[in-house]
């Protein structure tokens, strides 16, 4: 299932946040959205998943999601959004219960996703006992359990320290290599974008417009920490963004 953004514009009251965004998100690829802070990249992600309604333009699903897909558009949030009163297993089962999946069928799915995210030993732990990286892995397991057609990832690694971030990036690459998934990945971290993105969309500062599309052909599995060709792309992206980021930083927030 592909996603097409058709001339999306969005405003909060008087403040124009996004202007005329048109974009294709092809199946099986990771599209990274980067841009200076406040450029509306998280807003765009909320629009794609239907958590907000665009002022103008439409988000279209092309084709039907696979039959075993319980929740086609599934988010992974920056703050993990785990229920603190449920165990790891309970947090995953939360999203299955509403689809009538309980008992042995649920157990099979939960065991599978926990194994894929290397959490099998922690299924009865509560979120407060887990490190940030583990919490995000629980959120990833929860997202995998509903077999999403498109994963919408809102700065999923931004709340983590840099070492955990590297480890989790490797995990994401491994997950994708095993079974390619479609994802829209919002980040302000260019290193993440060049490691995980097949296509990188650079947004300008507010109101966000598409400044450039960068395609990276190198397979995810072959990309590594500090690859020189990736560094070059990262530098190119930073050159595009530097002035914008500086200007965005000096803007007042409530105008």
């Amino acid at each position, binding site marked *: 299932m592909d996603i097409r953004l058709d001339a999306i514009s969005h405003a909060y009251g008087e403040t124009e946040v996004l202007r005329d965004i048109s974009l294709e998100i092809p199946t099986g690829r990771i599209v990274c959205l980067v841009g200076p802070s406040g450029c509306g990249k998280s807003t765009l992600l909320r629009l794609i998943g239907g*958590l907000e309604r665009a002022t103008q333009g439409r988000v279209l699903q092309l084709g039907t999601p696979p039959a075993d897909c319980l*929740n086609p558009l*599934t988010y992974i949030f920056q703050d993990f*959004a785990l*229920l*603190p009163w449920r165990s790891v297993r309970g947090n995953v089962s939360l999203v299955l219960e*509403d689809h009538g999946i309980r008992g042995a069928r649920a157990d099979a799915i939960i065991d599978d996703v926990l194994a894929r995210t290397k959490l099998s030993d922690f299924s009865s732990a509560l979120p*407060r006992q887990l490190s940030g990286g583990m919490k995000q892995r629980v959120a990833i397991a929860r997202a995998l359990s509903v077999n999403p057609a498109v994963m919408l990832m809102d700065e999923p690694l931004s709340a983590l320290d840099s070492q955990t971030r590297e480890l989790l990036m490797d995990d994401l690459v491994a997950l994708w290599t095993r079974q390619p998934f479609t994802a829209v990945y919002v980040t302000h971290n260019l290193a993440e974008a060049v490691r995980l993105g097949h296509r990188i969309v650079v947004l300008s500062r507010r109101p966000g417009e598409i400044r450039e599309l960068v395609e990276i052909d190198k397979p995810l599995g072959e990309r590594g920490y500090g690859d020189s060709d990736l560094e070059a792309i990262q530098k190119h992206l930073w050159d595009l963004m530097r002035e914008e980021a500086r200007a965005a930083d000096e803007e007042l927030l409530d105008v």
Partner: protein
Amino acid sequence: MSDNTQKSQPIEVRFRGGGFAPKSPRWVGFSVFVVLIAAIEIGTQSGFISSLTLPKPSDVLAAFGELWEAGLLFKHLAPSLSRLAIGGAIGASVGIAVGVMIGLFSYVRAGLVPLVAAIFPIPKIALLPLFVIWFGIDEASKYALIAFGTFTPTVVATYGAVDNVDRSLIRMGQSFGLSWFSIVRKIVLPGAMPGILSGLRISLAIAIILLVAAEMLGAEYGIGAYILQAGSLYDLERLFAGVVILSLLGVILSTIIGLVEKRLLAWRS
């Protein structure tokens, strides 16, 4: 200058990070009670405190013993406890239900928040005559008074707690396509539980106050009636025995809520 500091005697850095972290060591609270009661006992025995000012704690204990031996303790305690349980349960459950609705529905919020704000400051005791006319002089008017008194603080605590539920968790529920009912049951209610329970602590203390007030106005048996009888005879020993029972009741209720919190909110801390 720098040479000077190098040669001079090293000074250990002074610790200045202590305090501002109160703990409650065991038995301190208990000792305060013991010391206070012992001081009053000694004062009254020696005549330093006249018997008109305060009764001797030992006499209060004796009055308590009499009450026990005459079998009157449970005759007074049983109706009081059942009034507290029924009235409190009605008030708390209706209060939680209304509070959750205020937290969830715009029209209920717009309509009821001003109403609750208007009835919150009314001293409910002042309405007892009205309740007697509406519900009769029997138990029903006492239930109504206690229920009404626990209702308002429970409503306010509950809708505040619902408002404070982490919105990002609710967005998460929506993004996974959970039904409205599931979001309320699995995300909103557990998330509001800490606030609801701390509201109940206050509501139940108010329920005890209103229980006594209701019983003072018309009851044959009950802790309130017992205190009223003792008070009208200026029998300070029995009056204090009644007051001690009420205090104990408050402590027990608060302990029970503490245990419920420990059980239901084990995920915190």
